[in-house]
């Protein structure tokens, strides 16, 4: 959150791109818009095959009209970026400059992809405690005892909130059941 220094800008009135990144930032915006636009164009072209139109309705009542409008909007919104991207590629200025990859975020997302499968495997509390510890390590937290306390505290809070208070059902930990059966 930037510190307040001058008059308030009108919401949404800022220029394209995150502030302070110049041409490389604008190219990153164009690249993101271009990728979404191309994906949208692909879906738009393939829509007649990706939507089941076996019903008897006329087109205007059918399932295809609104997705087509949605994807057309998507592609229309991406068009200026696609044009700029094509122009910059033709001029040989396609680089993104020195935009550093967000490694902490990449590590954390990669780790959290394993959380959903771990939930039914080791149960809510163990999964939360384990992934909180690993997550803190992944983002560069260097105080193991404090990290452990945070992880156990979080597991306790989520247990109390979801299981005790809201009575939400979570799967029985499969691993514990297997170990019990083996014992």
């Amino acid at each position, binding site marked *: *959150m930037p*510190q*307040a220094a001058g*008059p*308030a800008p*009108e*919401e*949404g009135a*800022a220029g394209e*791109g*995150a502030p302070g990144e110049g041409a490389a*930032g604008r190219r990153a*915006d164009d690249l*993101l*818009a271009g990728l979404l*636009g191309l994906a*949208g164009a692909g*879906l738009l072209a393939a829509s007649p095959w*990706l939507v*089941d139109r076996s*019903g008897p309705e006329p*087109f*205007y*009542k*059918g*399932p295809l*009209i*609104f*997705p087509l*409008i*949605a*994807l057309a*909007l*998507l592609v*229309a*919104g*991406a068009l*200026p*970026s696609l044009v700029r991207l094509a122009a910059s590629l033709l001029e040989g200025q396609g680089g993104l400059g020195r935009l550093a990859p*967000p490694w*902490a975020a990449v590590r*954390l997302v990669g780790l*959290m992809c394993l959380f*959903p499968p771990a*939930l*039914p495997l080791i149960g809510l509390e163990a999964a*939360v405690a384990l992934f*909180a510890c690993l*997550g*803190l390590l992944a983002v560069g*937290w260097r105080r193991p005892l404090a990290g452990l306390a*945070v992880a156990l505290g*979080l597991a306790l809070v*989520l247990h109390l*909130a*979801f299981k005790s208070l*809201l009575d*939400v*059902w*979570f799967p029985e930990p499969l691993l514990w059941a297997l170990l019990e059966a083996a014992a």
Partner: protein
Amino acid sequence: MIDHLAEGFAAAFALANLLALSAGTVVGILVGVLPGLGPMVGMAVLLPFTFSLPADVALSLLLGVFCGGYFGGAVPAILFRTPGVPSSLVTAFDGFPLTRRGEAQRALSAALVGSLGGGLISIVILVALAPLLSRVAAAFGPPEYFAAALFGVLLVVVSFRRKLGQSVLLLGLGFWLSTVGLDGPTLSARYAFGFWELQNGLHIVPLVLGLFGIGQSLLLLEQGILDTGHLKLSRGSLDFSKIRESLRYWRTLIRSGVIGTFVGLLPGPGSVLASYLAYDAAKHRSRDPDSFGKGNPEGGLAAEAGNNAVPAGALIPLLTLGIPGEALSALLLSVFILNGIYPGPLLLVKEPVLISTLYWSMLLINLVAFLVLALWLRPFATIVRTPVKVLAVSVILVSLVGIYPVNLRLFDCGVALAAGVLGYALLKRDWPIVSLVMGIVMGPILENRLRETLSLGEGSPLILLERPITLGVLLLCLAVVLLPLRRRRARP
């Protein structure tokens, strides 16, 4: 009417509702105080908790976060010149200079009185205006609804004039995401790619939790911890003797509350514009405009009254037309729909007790937020010291755990993670993510209204031009698109 108000009063003061609105308010203040989070993250994270709650209690919980966030955002803006929510940026103009002069209590009193006053004034306007608008909207058929919803969406899109391409792109993406899965009227599968999980559609909860809860948390990792070494508070709670001084600005309070409510009523502009317009009006009406920006408590009061009036203002089109003005009320709309309640002109007739409960709850939320912050000012101010790494990991885990019980599907956690990556990219690049949320929430509503309209016109969209209200609204749409272009051309 009186009976409904009494029933609503009883429902609002029921223990479950009081607990929900208090919990929501505290969470709202927490996420408002913490720069980088904000009420949207709080509402998204609490969304799964609402499934096991009755509609009125669920709405009180989320409204608590909505209003509490604006209350909390003023604290770091005044103490550290770092707004907790974007609209508190304006509060910092005068709040921080006052803090530097050792008058933080004066600034905080003005801001909190402003927040409370703005909130209360906007509730009065909501109670008065909603039935009037509802009566007008009672004459609406599908074409009028379609035109009104189109107008609402258009206003949001064009409010990001300098990011129009991104805004249109995200709106289209949101609309498309809302179409994935089985189509309700025809039961046709759309974009399922052979996966049965996709046939059930993309639920709004994982999408919103991913975009805001996970996306914002990932972004938080790149933001450093605030320098809070110079926290200057003479006492742990608010100095109540300063409140009387703030009440001297009652005219500014009322004016700012009215401005905030009407800005909130319009889809698109949002709380930043509300607080800025209220601040600007206070400055122009002041006998000492030069003192604004240098530590005039009236400025902070005006800005906070303006931004805290937005939630009740935003409820007016939401309750009467079913059109959310921005992302936060779009999320509220999803809670209504998930509970089988469809906001519109008949809502005030069909669910008068629910509406009355909401009015009372809003009133209570403003009082609770004021008292909680006034009594525990220092603890809330020191929460800013929470390490961002702990915050980010905790919010992501709470989000993932919260998503699972929605449909008991691990697939939803995957959707949330994917949405989180997209949300991170969009937030980092400062794209108008509000348009995406509007698209996801408004997509099904617009699609249904479009089909009904086209069915009435036997396939011809010209039916929209044959009805006076739709024609008027479409002309307004045209004006919204063309006027900025004309203004741009007129500029040298």
